[in-house]
C-alpha cells in the first residue's frame, strides 16, 4: 500500500528521478529539454526558500491577485437540498477570475529571475492563457499562448482578453484541437526556443518541476481556506468534504494541500472529473474509469489511451477539464486512497450551474459546476453537521455562449 508521508509537502515526496510513489511523474522528455528543466529545477529550489522572493510572491498574491478570496455559505442551496451545509471558496473572485493566476504570477516571477524575456503557455478553457497574458504584460514579458482551435471557438471570450493583453494566441490545429494538443505544441515550441523562453505549463502536469511549481502556487487557496475555516468554525470541523473539479488537477491540489495530513474521516477529498455527454462513451475521466498508466507530456500518469499506447480522444462540455491525462499528484492520491475520484456528466454540470446560479449570488463556470454536481448529489445523504466546501474556481461568464446554446438562456 502506497503511503503519504506526514509533514512533507506532497510535491516533495518524489524520488531522485522525479517519480511519486515510484511510478508517477518523472521527466520523459527529449534530451534538449533536460538542461532547461534542470536549470529551472535548481532556480525554483533556490527561490522557494528565498526571503526576498517569497516577499515578492506574497505581495502580488495579497495586493494584485487579492487575498483571501471569499469563503461563503450557500444558504439557499443548503436549505434547498437538506443535509450537509454547503459552502463555497469563491476563488473566481480573484483578479484572474480563476486559480490559474497563482501559477501565472509565480512563473512570471521566476522568468524574471531567470532573465527570460518571453513566456509561452498552453490553455484549454482559456483561463491559464488569460491569466498568463495579464501577468506577463504586467511584468513586461512577451507572451505566446497555444490553444486548440476547437477551444478557441468555444472559449472565444477569453481569447479576446488574451489578445487585449497583448499575447499572441497560436491556434493548434493538430489532433483533437483541444488542450492535449495545445500542451504538445507548446512543448514543441519550447524545445526550439528553450534558451530565450520560459515555459509555463498551465496545470499540475508535464515534467516534474512544472507539477511542483504549479501545485506550490495554487496551495495559496487552501492556506486561505484553513484560516477562514478556523475563524468561522473555531477549528476544522469534524466532517469536512472538499470537492473540486479535476482537469489537470492544479485547482484541486491547491484546494487540498494544507489539509493533506488530516485524517481522511475528518477531511475527505473528492475530485470530480469530466464524464462527458450522458450516454456517450467519450469522457475525460482517467481516474474514475481506471485508465492505465502511460506517459503523456513528459510524465507517467493514469491516462486515457488505447491498447497500443495512442492517447485517446476525450470529450467534455468543459474545455478546462477536457484532457486525457491527470496530474501525477492525483494518481498518487488515488493510489494512496487519500482522495477519491468520480465524474459528472455534461448534463449534470449544466444542471448544477443552473441550480447554483438560480439560488445563490455566485455563478460557477462549467468546470466547478462538475464539482457542484457532486455536492448536490452528496449533500442530502449527509447529516447537517457535515460541511461540504466546493472550490468555485471559475466564473460562468466565459461559458455564456455554450450555456445559452444548451439551456436556451444564460443567467449569472
Amino acid at each position, binding site marked *: 500500500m502506497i503511503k503519504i508521508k506526514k509533514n512533507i509537502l506532497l510535491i516533495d515526496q518524489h524520488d531522485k*528521478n522525479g517519480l511519486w510513489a515510484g511510478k508517477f511523474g*518523472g*521527466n*520523459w*522528455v*527529449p*534530451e*534538449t*529539454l*533536460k*538542461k*532547461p528543466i534542470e536549470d529551472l529545477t535548481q532556480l525554483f529550489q533556490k527561490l522557494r526558500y528565498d526571503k526576498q522572493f517569497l516577499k515578492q510572491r506574497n505581495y502580488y498574491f495579497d495586493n494584485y491577485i487579492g487575498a483571501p478570496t471569499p469563503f461563503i455559505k450557500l444558504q439557499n442551496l443548503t436549505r434547498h437540498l437538506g443535509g450537509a451545509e454547503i459552502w463555497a471558496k469563491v476563488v473566481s473572485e480573484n483578479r484572474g477570475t480563476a486559480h490559474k493566476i497563482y501559477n501565472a504570477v509565480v512563473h512570471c516571477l521566476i522568468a524574471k529571475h531567470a532573465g527570460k524575456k518571453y513566456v509561452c503557455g498552453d490553455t484549454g478553457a482559456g483561463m491559464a492563457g488569460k491569466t498568463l497574458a495579464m501577468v506577463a504584460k504586467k511584468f513586461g514579458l512577451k507572451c505566446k499562448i497555444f490553444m486548440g482551435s476547437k477551444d478557441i471557438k468555444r472559449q472565444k471570450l477569453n481569447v479576446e482578453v488574451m489578445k487585449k493583453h497583448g499575447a499572441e494566441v497560436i491556434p493548434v490545429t*493538430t*489532433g483533437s484541437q483541444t488542450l*492535449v494538443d495545445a500542451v*504538445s505544441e507548446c*512543448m*514543441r515550441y519550447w*524545445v*526550439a*526556443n*528553450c*534558451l530565450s523562453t520560459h515555459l509555463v505549463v498551465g496545470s499540475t502536469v508535464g515534467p516534474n518541476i512544472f507539477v511542483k511549481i504549479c501545485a506550490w502556487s495554487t496551495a495559496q487557496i487552501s492556506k486561505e481556506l484553513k484560516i477562514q475555516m478556523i475563524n468561522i468554525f473555531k477549528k476544522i470541523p469534524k466532517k469536512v468534504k472538499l470537492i473540486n473539479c479535476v482537469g489537470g488537477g492544479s485547482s484541486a491540489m491547491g484546494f487540498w494541500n494544507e489539509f493533506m495530513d488530516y485524517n481522511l474521516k475528518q477531511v475527505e477529498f473528492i475530485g470530480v472529473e469530466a464524464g462527458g455527454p450522458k450516454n456517450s462513451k467519450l469522457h475525460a475521466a482517467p481516474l474514475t474509469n481506471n485508465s*492505465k498508466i*502511460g*506517459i*503523456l*507530456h*513528459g510524465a507517467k500518469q493514469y491516462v486515457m*489511451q488505447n*491498447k*497500443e*499506447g*495512442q*492517447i485517446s480522444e476525450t470529450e467534455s462540455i468543459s474545455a478546462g477539464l477536457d484532457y486525457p491525462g491527470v496530474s501525477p499528484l492525483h494518481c498518487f492520491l488515488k493510489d494512496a486512497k487519500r482522495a477519491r475520484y468520480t465524474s459528472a456528466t455534461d448534463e449534470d454540470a449544466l444542471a448544477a450551474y443552473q441550480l447554483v446560479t438560480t439560488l445563490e449570488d455566485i455563478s460557477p463556470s462549467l468546470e466547478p459546476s462538475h464539482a457542484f454536481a457532486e455536492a448536490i448529489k452528496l449533500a442530502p445523504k449527509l447529516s447537517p453537521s457535515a460541511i461540504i466546501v466546493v472550490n468555485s474556481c471559475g466564473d460562468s461568464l466565459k461559458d455564456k455562449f455554450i450555456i445559452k446554446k444548451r439551456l436556451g438562456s444564460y443567467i449569472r
Partner: protein
Amino acid sequence: MTSKILETFLKCQKEQRPALLTYTVAGDSTKKQSLEIIKSIGEHADIIELGFPHNTPIADGGQIQESSHRALKNGIKLSDVFRLVKNFKQSKYAKPLILMGYFNLILQYGLLAFLKQCKKVGVDGLIIVDLPYPENKYFANQCKQHGITFVQLLSPTTSKQRIKKIIKDSHDMIYYISMLSTTGGKLKVPSKKILANYSQIKKINSRKKIVIGFGITTKTIVTLKKADGLVVGSQLCKEITRSLQIRQNPVTNLNRMVLNLKRKII
C-alpha cells in the same frame, strides 16, 4: 561481435564518406507503400530509420507530424511495423534498420516483449525520443543484452559533464541533434558551429560513431559531410506529402531524392 550498424559505419569510413541515414514513418502513406519506400531507398541509404508513430509527439515538427498522422489514419500498429521490418530485411536492398518513436508505445507493449519482437524481425537499433539519460539506463541495458543498439541522443543544450556520462553509457552509435528545434526546422546554426560541437563530442571517445540530424536537406548535407553519419528525415516526409498532392509516386520520387543526397556526400 560487431553490430551491423557498426559494420556499416566502418564500411563508409573506408569509402571516406559519411553514412547516409534516412527517416520515414511506417505506414506513410499506406502500410504497403511505406514498405515499398524503404525497400527502394535501401538502394542508396546506408541505414534506414523507421518511425513508429505516436499521436501525441512532443518533439516532431510539422512534416513528420503530417506523416505520422497519415500513418495513424491508416491504422498502423506495432504489429504492422514489425511485419514491415521483417519484409524489408528479406528484400534485395536490406540495410541495418533503426526503429524510432516514443516510449509510451513500448511501455504498453511491454519492454521485454518489444525487444524480443525487435530481435525476431531483425531490428538493429532503437531511438526513443522521450527516454533520455538516466531514465533510459534499464532499457538501454536490456537492448544491449538483446543485441540491439540503443542510440543515445545529445543536444546543443547537453552539458559537457552530461555528455561524458552519456557517451560512457552509449553503444556504437550516438545521435547529435544539430540545433534547438523540433524536426523539420531550417538549419538555423552555421554548419561550422555544428561541426565544432561534433568534434568536441568525437574527442571524448573517437570510437563512437556520431551521426548528425535535424535540418539536413539536399541543400545543407554537403556542408556536414565530415560527420560519421547524416540523417535526413523531414525532407523525405515532405516529399511524400508533395508527391501525394501532385499525384506522383512517392516511391520513385524518394528513391531519386535519396540518390541525390548520396551523390552530394560521396
